[in-house]
């Protein structure tokens, strides 16, 4: 079976980017990725844009990005699955190359969120729950994950302290990532004392909305092997994707994301690896509880042991488990929803190349991304390997 390689990565600064339009953000990441890959625009066959359109005034975002990158007339299209839109774009590019239609595809995740008022964003995000029977009660995105957190605490004895420890770890690593929105360490006490958002989640249990863009350039095995390059090749060897009900009223339980465990199984099988082979992971920590569920859904620990996993520092570098979100995660990096999945891919490639500096996981050769759309309606799990 032929493989798909990552030839280049590019990552802009995440945060409140009042200095730039969404296509200007896309340009920064794209230019870096092209340079990193040692390619020129004429080498590209297509682009795929990951973004959530409701946040932008511009309709049909792919068109304006393609024009600003001066890539007409090559094909482009948009993928949308809420907060997993970036990984859907990666998967779509992978499929396009795998099919033999394209050889080199640029994947650009980009999003501007900070132009909307917070209450408007809360309303918009809350509507990723089912609007006919749930949103009419003022559900919010943190509110949904809070329902999971409460159920997880009840079923497995997970504590507020353990939730806070996720935030502490991710802020610690965010402080070592120049592209992160928050670059300050925090304490468990500070997290526990922060403003309540939706019990049991406080402000420090929640990631921040942000603007940002990231880009990866994927290529066929043949094209990758013939390209001149300075960096070791990283391969996207396993792709998994699964769905679960839109409504929390139709889920088997409210303390795990079945789409995540299903997607993980697919990706592990395709890449011929097991959870114990993963040496570094980027998981979707939109809320602290989401990272704890991810440890379990990905098989890094037994179901129900996610709280213990962070308490025992297993997900820190050198902690004896799988280092998770050592770039700060969504929590400290910020979460420009369409860019997040692509940002995760950038960090894993960086780690597998050995380029992560102060937050490098020693000798990492197998890495994973776990990108959740909405409240687990969609999950994409991707496994990357270095030669």
């Amino acid at each position: 079976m032929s493989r798909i390689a990552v030839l280049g990565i590019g990552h802009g600064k995440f945060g409140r980017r009042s200095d730039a339009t969404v296509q200007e953000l896309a340009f920064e990441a794209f230019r870096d990725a092209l340079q990193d890959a040692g390619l020129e625009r004429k080498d590209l066959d297509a682009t795929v844009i990951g973004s959530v359109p409701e946040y932008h005034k511009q309709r049909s975002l792919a068109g304006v990005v393609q024009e600003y990158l001066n890539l007409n007339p090559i094909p482009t299209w948009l993928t949308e699955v809420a907060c997993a839109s970036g990984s859907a774009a990666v998967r779509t590019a992978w499929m396009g190359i795998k099919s033999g239609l394209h050889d080199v595809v640029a994947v650009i995740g980009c999003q501007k969120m900070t132009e909307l008022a917070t209450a408007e964003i809360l309303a918009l995000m809350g509507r990723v729950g089912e609007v006919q029977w749930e949103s009419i009660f003022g559900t919010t995105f943190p509110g949904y994950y809070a329902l999971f957190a409460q159920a997880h605490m009840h079923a497995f004895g997970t504590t507020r302290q353990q939730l806070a420890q996720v935030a502490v770890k991710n802020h610690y690593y965010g402080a070592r990532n120049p592209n992160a929105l928050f670059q300050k360490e925090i304490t468990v006490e500070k997290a526990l004392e922060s403003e309540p958002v939706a019990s049991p989640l406080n402000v420090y249990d929640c990631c921040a909305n942000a603007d940002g863009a990231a880009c990866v350039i994927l290529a066929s095995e043949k094209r990758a092997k013939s390209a001149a390059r300075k960096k070791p090749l990283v391969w996207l060897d396993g792709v998994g994707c699964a769905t679960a009900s839109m409504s929390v009223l139709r889920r088997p339980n409210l303390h795990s994301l079945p789409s995540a465990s299903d997607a993980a199984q697919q990706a592990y099988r395709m890449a011929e690896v097991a959870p114990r082979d993963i040496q570094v992971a980027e998981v979707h920590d939109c809320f602290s509880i989401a990272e704890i569920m991810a440890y379990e859904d990905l098989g890094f620990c037994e179901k129900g042991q996610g709280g213990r996993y962070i308490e025992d520092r297993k997900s820190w570098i050198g902690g004896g488990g799988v280092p998770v979100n050592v770039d700060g995660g969504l929590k400290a990096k910020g979460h420009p929803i369409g860019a997040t999945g692509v940002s995760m891919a950038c960090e894993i490639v960086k780690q597998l190349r050995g380029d992560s500096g102060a937050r490098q996981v020693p000798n990492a050769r197998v890495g994973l991304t776990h990108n959740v759309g909405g409240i687990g309606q969609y999950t994409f799990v991707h496994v990357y390997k270095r030669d």
Partner: protein
Amino acid sequence: MFAWFGKVNFSPYTKVAEFADHLKDGHLKGSRCRKCGYTTFPPRADCPECMSGEFEFKEFSGRGKLHTYTRIAAAPSGFEDEVPYTIGVVDLEEAGRLLAWFGPTVAESDIRIGMDLQVVPRIFEESERIKVYYTLDKPGTTWGKT
């Protein structure tokens, strides 16, 4: 008139629009497939099991157990004047689940996962237009208007 359902309604047109009329009259209705008998809440017109489009409304007791809950402090637009409010998800006795606010009969400090609750149909009193919803209350709570 499904537009009656909810403080803010996002989906006024649906095949199960009569649900709101029943709720206004004090009845909580789920759906039952006429072909295979699949019963669920929230009601749905099209059967997810056998794909039949023939359904009937089925009276639900409104009895259920609390599955999980959260107290919302940061509200979305349209709900700012309600905060803080507590949302619960209940497993209904007959089938399915329901999400709603807690009513006045349950004190915040008494909320426990697994507790027995009664779903109670309600009308927004302060609104000039008809707006119906339901709350989670103590077992035995009845709706005053029926």
